[in-house]
C-alpha cells in the first residue's frame, strides 16, 4: 500500500508545508485521529496538538495551535492558526 496523498498545511502567515504523506496523525476536538489516503470526505475541527505527517518512513512533526482540516480522497488541507516545526 504505497498510497500517498497531498498534504498542505496553511497558516495565516504563509503556506507552511506542502508535500505528500502516507499517513497523518492529529488531535481533533473529539479526540485523536489518524488518516490514510482514500478517506471519506471529512471536515474536522482541530485542537492544539502536534501533527505527525508520515511520509515513506519519515515522520514530520508540526505543532499546531488549533484550526481545522479538510480531508478529501487524495488530499488533506490543514488550516492552522499557527504552525511550527517541532
Amino acid at each position: 500500500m504505497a498510497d500517498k496523498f497531498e498534504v498542505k498545511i496553511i497558516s495565516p502567515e504563509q503556506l507552511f508545508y506542502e508535500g505528500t504523506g502516507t499517513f497523518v496523525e492529529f488531535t481533533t476536538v473529539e479526540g485523536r485521529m489518524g488518516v490514510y489516503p482514500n478517506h471519506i470526505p471529512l471536515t474536522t475541527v482541530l485542537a492544539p496538538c502536534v501533527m505527525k505527517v508520515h511520509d515513506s518512513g519519515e515522520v514530520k512533526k508540526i505543532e499546531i495551535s488549533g484550526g481545522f482540516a479538510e480531508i478529501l480522497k487524495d488530499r488533506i488541507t490543514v488550516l492552522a492558526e499557527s504552525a511550527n516545526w517541532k
Partner: protein
Amino acid sequence: MASMREIKRRRTSIQSTQQITKAMKLVSTVKLQRARQRAENSKAYFTYMYKTITSMLAKAGNVDHPYVKGSDSKNVAIVTVTSNRGLAGGYNANIVRMVMGSGFEKENVRLYTVGRKGVEGLERKGYKIVADYSDIIEEPTFADAKEIGERLLSDFANGEIGEIYVAYTEFKNTVSQVPKLMKLLPVDAEGMQADAEELSELDKLTPMNFEPEEEEAIALLIPKYMTSILYGAFVEAVASENGARMQAMDSATNNAEEIISDLELKYNRARQGAITQELTEIIAGAEAIG
C-alpha cells in the same frame, strides 16, 4: 511682478517640501513591498477559509444558529480599517465616505475603529465609537485580529449588535485600491452558494462529513472565520495604505517639480527685468551728464 527675493524664497520652500514628499514616497515604496508580500503569503489561508465555510454552509442548509440567522438587535457594527497617519491621498477619506454613504441610520451604527484617521473623521460626523484598536494597524498580527473578533462575537451574543460589517480597502494592485464594505455576520448563506467549486468528480459525488456535527462545527468555525477575515482585511489595508501613500507622494513630487520650473522661469524673467531697468537708468544718467 513679485520681487526676485520673494520668488527665490518660495522656490526654496517648495524644494524642501519636494524633498520630504520624495523621501516619503521612497519609504512607502519599501513598506508597500513588505506589506504586499505579507498579504500575498496569507491569501491562501483566507481563500481556503472562505471556501470551506461557504461549502459548509451550503451543505448544512438551514442551520438554526444565531451566527447564520442573525439576532433581533437593530444595531450594526462596522469595523473601520484606516491608517494612523495622513498624507495618503483619498485612502482614509474614502472609508469615511463609504461608512457615511452605507445607508445605515447613524444612531444604529456602532463603530469598532482601527486607525486614528477613521476615528477623527467619523467622530466629528457624530458616529458612536464603541472600541478603538488604532495601535494595531502599524503591525497587525493574527492575535490582534482574534482579540477584536472575540469582542465582536461577545457583543453579538449579548444582543448589542445584530450585524457585523468590515470597511477596509481592498488591494487590487499598486495603483488601484478599492474601498469595500463586507458583511461578516450573519453569514449570508444564500449569496455564498453561487461560488462554484473545482472538486474532482468523486469528491463531488460524496457528501462532506463533519466532525463534530454541522451545527457544532459551525459554532466552532465561525470565530475562526471572523478572525481570519479580519486579519486578511488588516494586512490588505496596510498594503493599500502604502500603495495610496506612494501614489499621493509621487504626484505631490511631480507637482512640486512643475511649480519649481514655473518659479524658475519667473525668477529669471524678474532678474532680466531688473538688469534691463538698471541699464536704462545708467544710460539715462550718462546722457543727462553728457
